[in-house]
């Protein structure tokens, strides 16, 4: 069954979109990532204009992250205070990101920037996560899994110290603010929630308790992507409500399944899986950049 999308002005199969939403939603619930890093390239692949794909994907992530947050909220695995600090940075970041996006849209280099962002960030995050989780898995196999001592680094000497009870932390508010800020920019440019950067940053950079990482990440992502959606809608008119609806119906169902499946799997294995997925997407996009393309030309809209 084909559906004509009013903003994208293309006709696509509705079941394909529902399926995509479902699959990506499953990952979202499982790993605490929005899944945008998979969905946005897929949408562009099936013929949605990149600008519409990025903006609409942000809208879909609002739905799947809210659905995930609700589930985590009941389990009390959301650190609201930490989430709010991350959010403050995120909102500033996404406002700047949408402006950057608008400029690049006019220059015709959106595709390149989006692709480069993906390759660089997915690559770095994927490799780091893979190394760490393999090491963690080895340690737990050897049966010497002892709690790591918190190292005191420069992060702990920064001002504005706050106590984050749920995360079991007493650190400065500055690093979480900047993590949020950085992820906010990416959220706007790449059409992603930024969970794939946020989650590792929370674990390794901020040293948060892993139990609250997923819930808190989703909590923050929900607000940042909400703001991104609003900004894209107001500035670029690129949010397609019909596309978003189809994706999010699939997405929220997938998320709920993921959230229920998550606790039954081992955390290290889950992280290895996520790392491999991230690297796979990174590899594919990287290859597209360096490989000689089949079609050298592309059509872009020109100003009147």
């Amino acid at each position, binding site marked *: 069954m084909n559906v004509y999308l009013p903003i994208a002005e293309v006709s696509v199969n509705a079941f394909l979109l529902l399926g995509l939403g479902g699959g990506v939603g499953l990952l979202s619930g499982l790993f605490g990532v929005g899944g945008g890093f998979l969905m946005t390239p897929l949408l562009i692949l099936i013929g949605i204009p990149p600008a519409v794909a990025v903006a609409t994907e942000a809208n879909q992530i609002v739905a799947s992250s809210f659905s995930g947050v609700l589930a985590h909220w009941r389990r009390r695995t959301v650190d609201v205070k930490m989430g709010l600090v991350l959010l403050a940075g995120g909102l500033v970041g996404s406002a700047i990101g949408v402006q950057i996006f608008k400029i690049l849209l006019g220059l015709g280099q959106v595709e390149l920037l989006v692709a480069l962002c993906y390759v660089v960030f997915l690559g770095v995050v994927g490799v780091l996560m893979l190394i760490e989780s393999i090491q963690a898995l080895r340690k737990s196999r050897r049966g010497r899994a002892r709690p790591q001592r918190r190292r005191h680094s420069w992060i702990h000497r920064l001002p504005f110290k706050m106590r984050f009870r749920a995360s079991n932390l007493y650190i400065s508010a500055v690093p979480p603010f900047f993590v949020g800020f950085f992820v906010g920019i990416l959220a706007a440019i790449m059409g992603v929630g930024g969970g794939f950067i946020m989650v590792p940053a929370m674990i390794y950079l901020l040293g948060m308790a892993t139990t609250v990482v997923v819930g808190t990440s989703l909590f923050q992502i929900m607000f940042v992507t909400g703001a991104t959606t609003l900004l894209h809608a107001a500035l670029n008119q690129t949010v397609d409500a019909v596309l978003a609806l189809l994706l999010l119906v699939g997405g929220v169902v997938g998320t*709920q399944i993921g959230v229920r499946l998550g606790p039954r799997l081992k955390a290290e294995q889950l992280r290895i899986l996520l790392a491999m997925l991230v690297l796979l997407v990174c590899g594919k996009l990287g290859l597209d950049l360096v490989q000689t393309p089949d079609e050298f*030309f*592309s059509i872009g809209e020109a100003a*009147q």
Partner: protein
Amino acid sequence: MPLPLALLLLVLMVLPARSEEVVAELSQSQVSITAGFSGSEIVVFGAVKRNAPTPGDGPLDVIVAVTGPSEPVIVRRKERRFGIWINGPGVRISSAPSLYALATTGPLDQIISHTDGLRYRVGLDQAIRLIDAPVWVDDPAEYREALVRLRSESGLYFQEVGSITLREDTLFHADIDLPAQLVEGDYEARIFLLRGREVVDIHTTSIQVRKVGLERWLYNMAHEQSLLYGFLSIAVALAAGWLASAFFRFFFP
């Protein structure tokens, strides 16, 4: 006989009466884009009207051309820089129709002369032209060809050569399949009557392509009340997220 009437008669007699005219009607002059829109077929019915006996010079042919609203586009060529492929500066094509559909009674070069093809801009080669290319472009034709190729691949540009049959040199009909990827606007349908490779008559009519219902409403709102549209999008997302969560909690606690 009063003088004005006599004058009128004189004028009518002096004017060269066209011996052959084309009369045509479209199956629909309005295309509505609904949520389930999957393309539309336009049938052009036509007949040749004669005031005099058939002139014997050359064969009679028909060309039906449907053109979508034109917009300037930028065609970019990927270039290799620092080992990666990036979009080059791009060539602006000042007017490219969003759709170009052609149906004919035979191959274009056999039924229309080069001069008439140029004058009426019939055929993909004439309809999309690059007026002035920037100096740095080595091969401007390549950009024009790329536009035609890409739009043909997505089904927006097509020429159905020989798809029209002219019965008894009088009656004809042409089927034009409009693709699902239509944009809104006023489309123009031109029906050319040709005798001996020269255009003898043109019938021009317009087809209005409009989004209707939900599509119309969403599109208008996105552009006219963008902020409200943004808030509504978020509200829908939150409602769906909550519904799914509530549903799963109820059935799979």
